[in-house]
C-alpha cells in the first residue's frame, strides 16, 4: 500500500486522499480551521501548512503521494501558524473572556495548541454588527474568521445557500443572502447543518449562553489534537 512519512511515522493512505485526511485517519493531528472532513477542502486559512520535501503546502488541498516526506510540527511551521492565527485575532473582535464559545472554540484551541499567547499585530477593532433578527440564532460577525464552513454547509448539505462571503482580501466578509441581509429573513433553521458547524462563536443559538459549566466544555474534556482527528470532528 502507498504510504507517506509524517515526521517519524509511516502512514498508509488511499489514493485521492489529502495529506490531512491520511494523517487524521492515522490519528495524527494537523492544526486547521477551514478544513472539515464533511466538506470540500478550501485551503484558505493556511493553518494546516506542512512541509513536503522542504516546501510549505496546505495539507487539506495537497494529495498524499507515495513516499512523501512530511514535516508537520517544525518550528518554522508553528511560527507560520502562529502568525496566521495572530492575524485572525487582530483582524476581528475576539474577546474570549466574555465569549460563550470559550472552551469549545476551535480558534481559541488551535491558538493554544500552536503556542500563540498574544497577537503582536495591531488590533483593528473593526465595526461589525450582530444580527439577532433570527428567532433562534444570532450571527455575531465580530468573531467570524471567514472559514466558509457555514457557506459550504448551507449550500452543499442544506441546499439553502443562506451565507456567502462578499468582498476580497481585507474587505472580505460574511453576508447573508437575503434582500435586507438579515438572518431572520432567511429560512435558516435549527436543523440545518450550517447551524452547528461554525468553529468560533459567530453562529450561536439564542438565549442559551454559558449553559455548559467550565470543566465540561468540549475542549476542557478532550484536547483538540484528540478531538479533531478522524471520526471525531464536530
Amino acid at each position, binding site marked *: 500500500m502507498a504510504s507517506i512519512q509524517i515526521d517519524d511515522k509511516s502512514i498508509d493512505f488511499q489514493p485521492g486522499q489529502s495529506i490531512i485526511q491520511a494523517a487524521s485517519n492515522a490519528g495524527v493531528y494537523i492544526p486547521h480551521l477551514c478544513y472539515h472532513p464533511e466538506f470540500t477542502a478550501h485551503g484558505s486559512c493556511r493553518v494546516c501548512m506542512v512541509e513536503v520535501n522542504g516546501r510549505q503546502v496546505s495539507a487539506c488541498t495537497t494529495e498524499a503521494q507515495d513516499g512523501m516526506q512530511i514535516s508537520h510540527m517544525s518550528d518554522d511551521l508553528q511560527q507560520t501558524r502562529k502568525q496566521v492565527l495572530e492575524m485572525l485575532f487582530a483582524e476581528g473582535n475576539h474577546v474570549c473572556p*466574555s465569549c*460563550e464559545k470559550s472552551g469549545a472554540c476551535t480558534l481559541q484551541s488551535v491558538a493554544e495548541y500552536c503556542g500563540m499567547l498574544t497577537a503582536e499585530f495591531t488590533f483593528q477593532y473593526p465595526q461589525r454588527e*450582530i444580527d*439577532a433578527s433570527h428567532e433562534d440564532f444570532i450571527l455575531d460577525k465580530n468573531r467570524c474568521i471567514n472559514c466558509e464552513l457555514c457557506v459550504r454547509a448551507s449550500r452543499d448539505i442544506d441546499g439553502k445557500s443562506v451565507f456567502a462571503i462578499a468582498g476580497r482580501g481585507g474587505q472580505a466578509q460574511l453576508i447573508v443572502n437575503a434582500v435586507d441581509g438579515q438572518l431572520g429573513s432567511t429560512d435558516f433553521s435549527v436543523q440545518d447543518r450550517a447551524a452547528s458547524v461554525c468553529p468560533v462563536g459567530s453562529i450561536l443559538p439564542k*438565549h442559551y449562553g*454559558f449553559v*455548559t*459549566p*467550565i470543566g*465540561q466544555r468540549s475542549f476542557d474534556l478532550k484536547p483538540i489534537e484528540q478531538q479533531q482527528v478522524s471520526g471525531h470532528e464536530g
Partner: protein
Amino acid sequence: MTKITIDPISRVEGHGKITLHQDENQRITQARLHISEFRGFEKFIQGRPYWEVPVMVQRLCGICPVSHHLAAAKAMDRLVGVSQLTPTAEKMRKLMHFGQVLQSHALHFFHLSSPDLLFGYDDEVRHRNIIGVIEDHPELAKQGVLLRKYGQEVVRMTAGKRIHGTGAVPGGINKHLSITERDELLKDIDQIISWSQNAVELFKTIFLRNREYHEQFALISSNMFSLVQADGALELYDGGLRARSADNALIFDQQNPEKYLDLIHEHVESWSFMKFPFIRSLGVDKGWYRVGPLARVNNCDSIDTPLAEQQRVEFKALSADGIVQYTLAYHWARLIEVLHCAESIKQLLHDPDLQGEDLLVKGDMQAVGIGVIEAPRGTLFHHYEINEDGLIKKANLIVSTTNNNQAMNESIRQVADVYLDGRELTEPLLNQLEVTVRAYDPCLSCATHALGKMPLQVDLIDHQGHTTQSLSKA
C-alpha cells in the same frame, strides 16, 4: 480658598486623589475623593446579547466579580420572565455569594487593614503591610490566607473558576454541587468558622483597647441603606430595601429593589467621575447614606446564624441609641459578616437541594430587568433594557463604592479637620486619610495599597492654583 491636593492615591485599576479645600481661616470646607472607575461598561455592553451580560460585566472588577455576575444574572432572570428560581439554582447562587463575600472580606481585613490595626497608623510603611503581619503574626496571616482561599474554593465549585466564572445564567445556574465537592468543602468548614470567630474577637479587642480614639476616628453621622430579609434579618443575596436615618428611624422598609429609582436619585458633580446617590425623599443634602457591612449590620434586626447573631447583639450595644456610626466599626461589621458567611456556607452544604438536577427555569421575555444584590462593599444595582431581538439597549449600574461616595468625602473631611494642622501637610495625616478611605473598602486599588507601597503625593495649592508645597511618600 486654599486647595490641597493629594495625588495620586492610585494603583493599576483606578485613579484617585484627594483634594482638601480650606477657607481663609484654614478650616476644611470640603474634601473630595476623586475616583475614576467603571468608565464605559454601560456603553460597551450596548448591542450585546443579554445572556452574555453576567459573564461580561463581572470583568468590571477583579476583586468582587461574583457580585456583578450575580446582580446581572438576577436582572437577566427578570428579562427571561423568571421571578422564582429552582431551589437548587437559588441555593447554589447563594453559596457562591457567601463564598465571594467571605473571600473579599478576608482579603480586605487580613491583607489590607490588619497591618494598620495591628501596628498602628504611624508604623513604618516598610513594616505596615502583609509581609509585616506574616513576620510578626504568622498564625494570623496564615488564617487570613486560608480563609480567603476557602471562599475562593466555594466560588470555584459554584462558578467553575475562582475568578470570572460562568455559574449563573439567565433563569438559573449551569451546575450543581457534586457530592465530592460538597465533602471537600465540609472538611474544613468548622475550622473556617472558628477562625472567623477569632477574627471578630481580635478586632473587638483592638477596637476596645483604644475605644475612644477608634470611635471618634473619621466619625460621621449618616443614613444606612441595605437589603434585608422579609423578617428584617441580614440579607446579602435578595430581599427588600431598607433605609434607616442617622437617629435610627426607618426611612423606608421592605421596598421592592426593582423600584429603586423611586427611592434614590444620583446627583452629579463636575469634579467627579463618580455620581452621588441620595434618598429622594430627603434630598441631596440630607439624603446621602452609607452602604456595606456597617450599614447592613446596623440595618438588620437579626442575623439568622447563631454565632454571628451573638456578635451582632454585642456590636449594637456599642452605641446607646442603637445605631453604630463609627467609621472604623466597618471592620467589626465586616468580620461579623465573615462569620455569618462561614456559618451560612455550613448550613447550605448540609442541604441536599445543592445536589438537585433542576437548574433552569424560563418564562416570557420581558423588556426590562433589574437585579440588586448586597456586594461585599454594599448595595449593587444592575438595570438593563433589551430590544425585541434580545440585544442590550440600555444599562445602568450603581456600584457599591458609588453609594458610599458622599460618606467617604465626609469622613475624609472630618479626619482632615481634626488632623490637618494649618497649612502643613504631614505624613501622619496621609496615613490617617489612607486608613479612612480603607475603612470603606472602596473598590479602587488605591485603597488596597498592595504591600504598603501605595504612593502618595500631596500638593498644597493656593487659591490662585499655584503649588506651594509638595509632599510625597513611596
